[in-house]
């Protein structure tokens, strides 16, 4: 089995690792780097629990090889809060009780942030389609959608004030 040396940036920090050619980025994050916030729900890109950003783009890390991350920037749930300060989405998910078991939550937060980065003023339908790549089996999505819409509204207000 051939090993690959990879240099990447994760949540702003330079990270170097060696991985097997066949290893997914999700496996590298979880098993080699201890970043277990991304979850493996299916390994086929259907559930979104492993969502990360690759150069800012929402990606299922189970569908990317560890080797392919070379020279790219990765964002994971572990990088979402800034020190003690939660990202507004993280806070709103708590406020709205938008999680029950919480296994899908990291993926939803990454996907929701990617959505709001592109579209700060989404309609309910846009939120629903923006999050359609992430499965949640507990909540029926109601409180998740409300949390994202509420975050978007707050962030727009904050931006206007700034």
């Amino acid at each position, binding site marked *: *089995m051939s090993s690959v040396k990879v240099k990447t940036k994760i949540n702003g920090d330079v990270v170097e690792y060696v991985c*097997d050619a*066949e290893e997914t980025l999700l*496996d590298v994050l*979880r098993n080699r780097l201890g*970043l*277990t*916030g*991304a*979850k*493996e*729900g*299916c*390994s*086929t890109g*259907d*559930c979104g*629990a492993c969502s990360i950003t690759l150069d800012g783009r929402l990606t299922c890390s189970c569908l990317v090889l560890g080797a392919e991350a070379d020279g790219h920037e990765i964002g*994971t*749930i*572990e990088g*979402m*809060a800034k020190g003690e300060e*939660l990202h507004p989405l*993280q*806070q709103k*998910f*708590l406020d*709205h*009780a938008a*999680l*029950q*078991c*919480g*296994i*899908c*939550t*990291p993926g939803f*937060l990454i996907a929701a942030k990617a959505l709001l980065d592109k579209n700060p003023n989404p309609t*309910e*339908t846009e*939120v*629903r*389609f923006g*999050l*359609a*790549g*992430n*499965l*949640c*089996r*507990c*909540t*029926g*999505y*109601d*409180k*998740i*959608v*409300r949390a994202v819409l509420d975050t978007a509204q707050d962030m727009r207000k904050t931006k206007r004030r700034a």
Partner: protein
Amino acid sequence: MPLDNAPDKRKFDVVGTRPLRPDGIDKVTGRAKFGADAVAPGMLVGRVLRSPHAHAKIRKIDTSKAEKLAGVKAVITRDDLPDHTKGDAGLRDIWINIMARDKALYEGHAVAAVAAVDAATARKALKLIKVDYEVLPHVTDVDEAMKPGAPVLHSHIFTDGVEPKPKKPSNVVRRYEFGHGDVEAGFKQADLIVERTFKTEATHQGYIEPHACLANVGPDGQGELWVCTQGHFMVRDTCARLLGMDISKLRVTASEIGGGFGGKTTVFIEPVALALSRKANRPVKVVMTREEVFKASGPTSSTSIDIKVGVKKDGRITAAEGTFRYQGGAFPGSPAEFGAMTSFACYDLENVKTVAYDVVTNRPKQAAYRAPGAPMAAFAVESVMEEIANKLGMAPIDFRIKNAAREGTKSSYGPTFGPIGLLATLQEAKKHPHFTAPLGKNQGRGMACGFWFNFGGQTCVTLNVTVDGTVTLSVGTPDIGGSRASMCLMAAEELGIPYDKVRAIVADTSSLGYNDVTDGSRVTFSTGMATIHAARAAIKKLCARAAQIWGIPEDAVTWEKGYAKPAGPNAGDFPPLSLADIAAQAGATGGPIAGHHEYSADGAGVSFATHIVDSEVDPETGFTRIVRYTVLQDAGKAVHPAYVEGQFQGGAAQGIGWALNEEYIYGKDGRLQNAGFLDYRIPVCSDLPMIDTVILEIPNPGHPYGVRGVGETSIVPPLAAIANSVSAAAGVRLTSLPMSPPRILAALEAQAKGK
């Protein structure tokens, strides 16, 4: 201090509020540790070899090549798991299910397992194991499995509950019968009878977290297991017995659990991981793939149901009868019995009879799925009720109100109901704006009611008062939807301290007495009541310490909103002592202050719900969209209303999936054809509307605060409510689930052809 269980009439201070959950920060930052997130020094990766055949004799398993592969540290087969079941039939089924013995009974049945230094080596080792199978005829459909001449799975199953006892083995495990009155006489009185047959396909709980565990057993017979489960005490006891270990020597810790819905109430990989660890003398982690979850965990039953209901012209039901055939996979235990028991529970019936058949087929052994057995039965019964109301020209809601079970009704499954909330949900439904909102083109509205027993069970809680006056609470029921928050609320309410001064944890099996599994919607009820009693035990001690400090008799001290006070003017004049004041002096007044409660909880309150659904059916494609959805359910008392709403919404959403998309599809070869989230499609965000909720609170007399379970009832009405809605929208009665576009188109075509 009253210790009886009459629901308090008082106003609550913290119960009923919506504070943030204690495990929230960990879960939004990715820090929460789930089943697959644990590591141990020297950890190996375990993987399981599974049968590709639905039914096959296992003649020989050759593991010699796999054992020789570099990096492989242990290989186990049936020979490594000798029979320790000591005549316990239920345990024996689990033993055979976790590792096939003489036969593979379904595609995905475990036949061997390996532990290796990494996943790639483990996968390679599995390919080197040679299994010599003799393929046998198989059966996966419940009706086919019941026919004479069907391939028989087990030579020891002779149908129980029939007279005379059959002489030949069959796939019918047992016949159940419930009811009262005389249905034949009842049907003779009827002006109108509707009789229909229904079928539902098997679905999976679809938790996003696959089963995962990390086992560590030493040659001294001591072990530890980290596992995502709804019941770590059950895992401990079952695994220890299967492996011939002392129960006390296996310490099981429940990880955060990424969904269960009943599917994590038994063991699959856990004893295998322990056996691998014991053989390798190294920690072994086993994580199922999604394909394994579909093929080798415990989906729910597929069913075939006949319903017959007779009514008078005035809308009063004269008789109701149902036959419920449920296949539960390769072993006994399908929830046919619960299907029959719950089916007519919403109705006040003079004459009712239900018969259930538990049937085995070549499918994975079913596990509980949220109100096991009830949603399918409700689908059949509530479809007939809607149809009969329509035929009578009566509004279905008025028909249901007229026949609704109420306090004093002898239920269709035996007991007489106490105070129940069914009528309240129906009356609220009628008043709800959804009920009279206009419908668009191709849209239809349906409704249905649902019932679930709810459960109590063995429970143990410890509450410790720390020296700074904050409180730790150890519970033994894994938190699958925010229950730690509810427990903190109830402890805070009793003690009279703020919510954030209580911290709840799910203690491991060596730190707390036995607790039944988190199931039966029992945790907020049972663990909650144990928490209340543990808090009251601690309060008794706190009062005693205050009495000691003041030098007055213990019974002269009372507890009020967090303070010990002299009970009256005769007790003396002392300034109140707060919980923190007393806690600070604990060391000098007799040592640590704690409260415990261990019991088997009785008095679980049954619960009812009414759901209203609008759907839109595209007559060209047969595609259905859920347009509007409202859940009205009796919670008894909503301890944390946000999470009660979450249970209502989650149950409805799972029901929508079950009604419209989800199904286990088997090929002629008996192999599952859609073992992945792409082809087994659970609802995604864009499939659903907002799900409105109305929480009703009809107190359960069996709980100090009136709490009833809420988690399961919410999945009982949706299949029926959606079927009624879709049937109204499409203009044709749908009797098979899921109501996928091809099925709806076929029904429309059949109707057009006048069939």
